């Protein structure tokens, strides 16, 4: 293949064009992602204030952890790593992420199995489950806040009529139930997404496998655990990791559904609160850097342990 153009071979020409095609995108991503991330990390090592972004001075790791020994000999630890509020937020986030993803996976699997069966009205069901997904998170938070309202909420009414509770519950305000409220709404909103991803995996399983199993008279439950589940494991693994990452950074639902509740405050919420509302800009930056680190470690571990092929290159 020697179409000569200034002495370049065709594949060299193509690679050169590819570079110019990719460069603008990379420049844009550097500008809005890499650079701000580096600046955030930098801010976390200074004492910058929101009102004076360029007046901060380098203070090393003091926002994370610092030790001061008083004259009396007492040791005082300061910083995010000894901040009880931060650890509360970490615990809230981790608990939320694991519980919500667990329920979304189980329920998503059930919905996907239903949608994978042939029956009348399947299109209708698929359309119906797309509705929670299409509704903006803020709108779903408000809709559920209204349904969970302590005095006029329909859910308390239903539960009272069914005799499940004997008095009205302040779902979003009470410390004991706020986390359940957030979990409930998140599971409602995100199970459809999970179901669609799992369904895509299910549809790759050849139908004749089921036919063969049916002919051999194998119990459907056994078919599911021995055949279906192993075959959709890669699709399931990818779906779970995407959900997990989304759950670990959750902000909007918590912020709107249960404002200022200690029981639900997540890492994203507490970081933003410090950064913007409490004028502890650098301290908040340190907390968001920690969140980034936690997520990065989690992803590397998951990919390394699970050997998940995220890029899809291996399939080709």
């Amino acid at each position, binding site marked *: 293949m020697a179409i000569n153009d200034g002495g370049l071979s065709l594949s060299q020409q193509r690679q050169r064009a590819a570079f110019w095609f990719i460069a603008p995108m990379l420049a844009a*991503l550097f500008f809005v992602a890499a650079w701000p991330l580096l600046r955030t990390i930098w801010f976390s090592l200074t004492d910058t204030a929101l009102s004076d972004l360029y007046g901060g001075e380098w203070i090393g790791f003091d926002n994370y952890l610092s030790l001061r020994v008083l004259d009396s000999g007492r040791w005082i630890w300061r910083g995010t790593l000894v901040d009880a509020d931060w650890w509360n937020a970490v615990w809230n986030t981790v608990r939320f992420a694991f519980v919500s993803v667990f329920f979304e996976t189980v329920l998503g699997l059930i919905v996907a199995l239903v949608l994978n069966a042939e*029956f009348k009205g399947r299109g209708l069901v698929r359309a*119906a489950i797309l509705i929670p997904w299409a509704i903006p998170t803020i709108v779903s938070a408000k809709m559920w806040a209204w349904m969970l309202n302590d005095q006029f909420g329909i859910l308390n009414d239903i539960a009272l009529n069914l005799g499940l509770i004997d008095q009205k519950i302040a779902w979003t305000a009470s410390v004991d139930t706020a986390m359940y409220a957030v979990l409930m709404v998140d599971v409602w909103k995100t199970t459809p997404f999970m179901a669609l991803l799992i369904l895509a995996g299910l549809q790759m399983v050849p139908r004749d496998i089921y036919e063969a199993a049916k002919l051999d008279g194998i119990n459907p439950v056994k078919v599911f655990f021995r055949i279906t589940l192993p075959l959709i494991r890669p699709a399931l693994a990818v779906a779970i990791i995407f959900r997990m990452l989304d759950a670990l950074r959750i902000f909007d639902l918590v912020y709107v559904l249960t404002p200022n509740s200690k029981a639900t405050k997540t890492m994203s919420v507490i970081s933003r609160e410090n950064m913007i509302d409490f004028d502890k800009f650098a301290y908040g930056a340190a907390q968001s850097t920690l969140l980034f680190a936690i997520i990065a470690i989690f992803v590397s571990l998951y990919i390394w342990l699970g050997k998940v092929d995220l890029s899809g290159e291996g399939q080709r």
Partner: protein
Amino acid sequence: MTAQKLLSTVGFYALVVVIVVFSVFPFYYAIVTSFATGTELFKVNYLPKSFDWGNYQSVLGGRNFVRSIVNSVFIATTTVVFALFLAVTASYALARVRFRGRGLLLMAILAVSMFPQIAVLAGLFELIRFLGIFNTPWAMILSYVIFTLPFTVWVLTTFMRDLPVEIEEAAIVDGATPWVIITKVFLPLLWPALVTTGLLAFIGAWNEFLFALTFTSSETTRTVPVAIALLSGASQQEIPWGPIMAASVIVTVPLIILVLIFQRKIVAGLTAGGVKG
């Protein structure tokens, strides 16, 4: 039909009904509430009793909510156009040209889409202040690139990888440059994919909350999610549930109609991207 088979059929359809009711009920109830005013609002009605446009009038009558809708449409459209423009050329190169480090580059792009947005908030805040676009739509348009661009690149790359290699070879033999191949050969084939990806990115930008909340400071520059989240009544204690539900219905109905029209394509796009739109 044996009794056992009948039972399992009934059980299956019961499950189907439960799934549909759970999915649809909250939105149905929001619609019912949005038409209730006065004391009717504070009675639990399972079926629509009143039909009063009052809440809609009060939401649309306040100038700022309409303004927020205009803001959101402008921001989401501009973001999507920009992202698609950059993504089409980039994903052609990523899908069709072999070069060293391609897999690594794809992983890096995917990694950006998984970024916790809070991790770039401080840096973006500084950048936006520096550029002098704080409290303008451009602050959101700039910051939304962080999740729309990786998503569109990723989905378009998977779409383009699946196009047959022959059409491209024919164009190369005819001496077409890569730019001509993209605009004349691939773009016409890519329209369906572009519509899907664009729609998903639009929904993502339309729904975004954290950046829009942080980078705006006045009521006239708010986007729809921020406006709904901060919609307040006459006093601090009194939450205007009627207008909030009306506003929610107004901004959600167009999305739901779009999603239902394009549902097959959206499902394909979502599963190709594996990323929440």
